[in-house]
């Protein structure tokens, strides 16, 4: 498998809902070499905080993204929903123009 390309996000984007059983993901660009900054709020942080971070990072790394800020507001979303919301936010952030 080829190493993932390095991609930069260009704009802010959101995905998901701030509702029970869902997660709101907000993504914004960051300065070069500032790295991946993730802030997680979750009603289940003590139980699933580490897993949420790992899932979010997994999706980001799959896109080869390097510098960005991402906030997660989780209200007990299942793992696949969290991954899908992050993916959607990234796809939106990568789109040019509009």
């Amino acid at each position: 498998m080829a190493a993932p390309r390095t991609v930069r996000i260009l704009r802010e984007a959101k995905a998901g809902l701030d509702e029970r059983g869902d997660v709101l993901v907000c993504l914004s660009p960051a300065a070069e070499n500032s790295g991946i900054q993730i802030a997680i709020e979750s009603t289940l942080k003590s139980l699933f905080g580490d897993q949420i971070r790992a899932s979010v990072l997994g999706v980001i790394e799959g896109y080869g993204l390097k510098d960005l800020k991402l906030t997660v507001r989780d209200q007990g979303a299942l793992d696949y929903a969290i991954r899908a919301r992050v993916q959607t936010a990234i796809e939106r952030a990568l789109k040019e123009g509009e």
Partner: protein
Amino acid sequence: MPDTNGVVNAAGRKVPLEIDGRRYRPYAGAFAEPPKEDKRRVGPRLGTILHPGDECMVPTLREAIERIELKDGMTVSFHHHFREGDKVLNMVMAEIAAMGFRNMTIAPSSLYSVHEPLIDHIKNGVVTCIEGGSARGKVGRAVSRGLMDRPMVIRSHGGRVRAIERGDLHIDAAFIGAPCADTIGNCNGVKGPSACGPLSYALADAIYSEKTVAVTDYMEETPVIPISISQEFVGTIVRVDNIGDPSKIVSNTLRLTRDTVNLNIAKNAVRVIEASEVFRNGIRFQTGAGGISLAVTKFLGERMKKRGIVGSFGMGGTTESMVKLLEEGIIHKILTVQAFDQYAIQSLLKDVNHIEIGAGFYANPHNRGTAVNLLDVVILGATEIDIHFNVNVNTHSDGILQYPTGGHSDTAAGAKLTVITTPLIRGRIPVVVDDVVVVSTPGESVDVLVTDYGISVNPRRQDLIEQLKAARVPLKTIEELRNLAYSITGRPKKPEFTDKIVALIEYRDGTLIDVLREVTPGR
């Protein structure tokens, strides 16, 4: 050599043998600890001689507290029939604080979110110990985070009465919120603007406390009828403006859930009951007011009607749906320890076959007749259930104290068929797990788990497995259900605790079944 810090009990939990000046025996099995032969019921001191014309009424709460000669360090008790609408506990404790009392123990039959002012009374040293029920909302959170130096004692309804009768829980003054009272101390809960139904949880308090104060906001001609708590036990009566918020005491109507997940769980629970040997004429059952439980009551009634089965009695947690079964002749009688809606209260007033029972009658394992032992079926919930069928109803999965035991462990021990109904997962939280945070009800008294992903029978009940298989009820092992839950949610991190014990979970026989520790700060 036994570890002086504790022993592993029959539920597999390590518990101390001595804590906070109390000596405990470890839980040894649901019926393993009968009361000591030479042990007697305790009783309050006798009163003085009563003269004709003696008055029990005092004009203010303060005068009531002065009259009973309350002192620092005493134990005061309350009942929880007003639920989130209760004004009595806060009112009395505010007065006790204002009068400068300190180091008090409170013994409520349960606590609700509305009792949040307790947190300040604890911080200010007015209250230093809580015995009984459990704590919901912010009080539960605060206790779990180590608010108190002394551990809270959590007891079931039956266990609380047992503790009172044995003297483990000595009550100096019972403050009884009485929706309807008279001038010599007779009370009931079925009349007046703050009607709550029965006064079941307060009965033992009234009989065994050194002093009993009825706090009322509605009076009728002496004697009030019906009499739930008798003048023999009530020495002081005070009338205040308002003892409860009616809209939060009982519901006008509890609606049947429209959640298809819960409806299906209820249907499957009824299928289990119908396939078991207890589904026959004379069946006795208890359901409650939760979404699934309400639906079970309705569906079970429908199946009984269809199959021509007539039940002996329903018990609970009484709701309109249970009363309807009585009115339709599907069951003969109702025994009520709590009324959840107006319809149930009205039925208590008018139907001779619907009676109020005290918490001791209901569930005390050490008296001469306890109603839970008559149950064929009980439908219960769980915040967690583990692969040994141990059930936690006291804490959330994160270890924070949230719910009382209520009659959970009492009815589970008594009923022939104990059914736990719960969704397999709640949000992202798995309900079926490897190990529960605390054991409220031991797995040995749980027979069946019904979830939206399948039904599992406790392997101790091979007879039941045969009955259900014969009726083609599909079964899974509890390990399969746990695996299914974890495959959907992921395996949550275990809550972390310090060494400090914040709550003692007493089994109904007075042994220690588990302890809850302080949640690690910052988590």
